[in-house]
């Protein structure tokens, strides 16, 4: 039983609105959180939770709405102001300097001084004291680069506590932890709550949310769907609130697509990320010609690493990848592409085009070495121009001509250029499309989706990775879900698939709930 007294309110927001160009990140969001409460904020990609947390931490300014701390309205101009009001944020990607000790990182910016120098003894002692008070075990003299992930996270938390944070915001804190470390974290969080600290944490892992939070707020598409008392709800209800019942947009596939031969086989591969952790564990799945296989999942569960491994940009640890029966594991990107794979990358400016190059230079980037387009000492300009004009026309790339500098094109047209290049030659039997319509206008989105559907109809297999669940369900014949690097098969499209996918996305791997 908890008293809903205004005095016990630690932080609340009323009618927060925040829009970015083309996206309503937060629409009329209102929340109230009490002192000592552990509140989970859940939602899938694009729900608006990260935007809201950034507003609370002073990194964004809301377009309208107000923030109250202990009942008083406050305005944050920057992160420092938020910190001064007792808000501390623990980021998903730690902001610790590797060559400092944990203690030095914790006191960074507010170092205790003795004359001109940092009082190292004080640093270690006060950090140790804080660590013992809140039961977050840490060795302040340990070098950060030698500390484990769990230790580093505790350092991040202590960093906030050292500055007197009363309200802690944790962004996907368990993403980098093992099960055991997660348990330890929860014990620590409960201890902090008992000390009167208020904790907000963002997660998409429902089982953990149920284990640790007092209340859970569900967000979707920028709105608060509802707040429930965690003890009175279950994963089924939360999952449904998170992903909704209806799929937006019509279905773009027929219901009886008969798949052909297997074009892509992934057998038991694992992939490491930048921190040498396993982002993908023992993943296996198959894709057949003529089908669109959707890979769903909350961002950061290994999708990027998986497809980078398939296209040869990341090494594979164990396992095999076969395209049309040919083993392409550990082969070069050129060889993989020659085996019949096309790739539409998620970060188009980084890996999809060279913005300073001409349009035609971007259009021939994959096939330029073929004999029709070039010989050893000569680029066949006429053939290249023909190819370029052909793609520009077929895929409706709006550009004055093929010699325009690519950076002059709008984002939507750059994406059409990329899709045109990857699909235009019609040689690929496996198309990897990662976030193909992210940030694209409606017309472009429609066109690109239609391109993919048409291409699959002609007998290729399309691997569609999207953070937008509606897009996955609009286009896919079958769906698999990546959760913590593991693959879960949600099976063929039917009217219950949304629920299945949602369950897997949030970590519920047993049989689903009743309807």
């Amino acid at each position: 039983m908890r008293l809903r007294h205004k005095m016990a309110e630690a932080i609340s927001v009323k009618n927060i609105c925040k829009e970015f160009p083309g996206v309503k990140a937060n629409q009329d969001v209102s929340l109230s959180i009490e002192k000592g409460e552990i509140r989970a904020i859940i939602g899938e990609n694009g729900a608006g939770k990260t935007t809201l947390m950034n507003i609370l931490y002073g990194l964004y300014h809301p377009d309208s709405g107000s923030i109250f701390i202990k009942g008083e309205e406050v305005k944050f101009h920057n992160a420092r102001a938020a910190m001064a009001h007792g808000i501390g944020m623990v980021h998903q990607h730690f902001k610790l300097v590797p060559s400092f000790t944990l203690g030095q990182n914790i006191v960074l910016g507010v170092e205790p001084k003795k004359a001109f120098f940092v009082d190292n003894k004080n640093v270690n002692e006060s950090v140790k004291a804080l660590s013992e008070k809140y039961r977050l075990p840490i060795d302040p003299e340990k070098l950060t680069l030698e500390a484990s992930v769990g230790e580093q996270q505790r350092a991040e938390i202590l960093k906030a506590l050292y500055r007197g944070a009363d309200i802690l915001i944790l962004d996907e804190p368990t993403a980098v932890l093992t099960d055991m470390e997660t348990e330890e974290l929860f014990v620590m969080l409960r201890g902090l709550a008992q000390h009167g600290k208020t904790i907000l944490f963002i997660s998409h892992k429902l089982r953990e949310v149920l284990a640790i939070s007092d209340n859970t707020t569900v967000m979707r598409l920028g709105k608060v769907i509802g707040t429930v008392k965690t003890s009175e709800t279950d994963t089924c209800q939360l999952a449904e609130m998170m992903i909704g019942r209806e799929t937006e947009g019509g279905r773009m596939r027929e219901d009886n697509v008969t798949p052909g031969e297997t074009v892509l086989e992934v057998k038991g591969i694992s992939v490491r990320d930048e921190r040498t952790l396993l982002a993908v564990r023992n993943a296996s799945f198959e894709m057949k010609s003529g089908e669109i296989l959707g890979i769903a999942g909350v961002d950061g569960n290994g999708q990027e690493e998986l497809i980078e491994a398939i296209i040869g940009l990341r090494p594979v640890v164990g396992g095999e990848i076969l395209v049309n029966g040919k083993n392409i594991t550990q082969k070069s990107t050129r060889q993989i592409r020659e085996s019949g794979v096309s790739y539409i990358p998620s970060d188009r400016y980084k890996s999809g085009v060279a913005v300073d190059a001409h349009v035609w230079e971007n259009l021939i980037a994959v096939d330029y070495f073929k004999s029709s387009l070039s010989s050893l000492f000569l680029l066949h300009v006429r053939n290249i121009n023909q190819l370029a004009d052909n793609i520009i026309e077929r895929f409706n790339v709006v550009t004055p001509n093929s010699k325009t500098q690519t950076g002059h094109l709008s984002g939507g047209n750059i994406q059409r250029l990329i899709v045109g290049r990857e699909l235009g030659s019609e040689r690929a039997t496996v198309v990897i499309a990662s976030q193909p319509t992210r940030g694209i206008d409606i017309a472009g989105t429609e066109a690109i989706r239609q391109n993919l559907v048409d291409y699959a109809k002609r007998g290729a297999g399309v691997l569609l990775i999207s953070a937008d669940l509606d897009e996955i369900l609009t286009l896919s014949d079958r769906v698999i879900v990546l959760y913590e690097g593991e693959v879960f098969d949600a099976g063929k499209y039917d009217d219950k698939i949304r629920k299945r996918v949602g369950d897997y996305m949030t970590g519920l791997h047993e049989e689903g709930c009743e309807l």
Partner: protein
Amino acid sequence: MEIDLRGIITVSLIAATLRMTTPVLLATMGGIFSSQTGIFHVGLEGLMDIGAFFAVVGSVATGSPWGGLLYAFVACTIASLIFAVIHLELGANEIIVGLALNIFAIGMTKYLLVEILGNAGYYQSPLIKGFSPVDIPIIKDIPILNEILSGHFPLVYIAFLLVIVVYLVLYKTPFGFHLRTVGEKVEAAQAIGISPKRIKYIGLIIAGIFCAMGGTFLSLSYLNLFSENMTAGRGWVALAAINFGLGRPIPGLIACLIFGFADALALRLQQFDLPSQVVLMLPYITTLLVLAAAAIRQETRKRRAGRLKAEQEKAAASA
């Protein structure tokens, strides 16, 4: 061919080493500050040139070497600010701006040499008041030690003392921590509210001040004159020394001493008509080896961490 080593390796060689190390050491220590903020500063050469020139101008104007030092400080600070603005505010590539600074400095000092001091090529005059050597009490009477440690120009002592100061500032003061944060993990600085731009400005100005000292030593200590190309590539050597130590002051000092020793030894060898080039090459080769060693160490560390993680995961999975 008889090589009388005793004629080459003498006590005075050590003294010469300290002397020849000084200008590079000063530039290196200054450059460490800008390097630790993540800037690859190729303009150290130009800054030293400007420092050497304006030190002479200032000495003539004020009648004192310390006045010369002051003029050098001001000139180098202005030059550093120009660099900073073009790189930090206008976003120009730091290497190109650094090179521009070098070229401009050479041209400008060459020109002003004629305009202000009235001579072409070099300027020497009794009006230039240089530093006087300093005798340290007590030590000056101890044989051998007195030749090595006493009787140097003030800037030599200042240079070596500054190494300690630089070390302390970088690793023991809050400012030093903030500086290194900007260079190593700028997001950590931004999250705390430290402005990376401000830190970089400060780093560049400090580099300028140190280079001013380095240049001043060249023109106002051993030789009281300014000549074109006086710096003779020392700014580039400083850059090598900084990289040798990966931005850290103590290894940087060692690199400078190696360079200084090589310089002094080379001079001596030239007197005996022996090839000095081989000796002079050594510091650069050493820098390359150190770079390779550091890279290999990082690779093995990464691989070890990867294996460690793999074992941790196996243990966690079976637990």
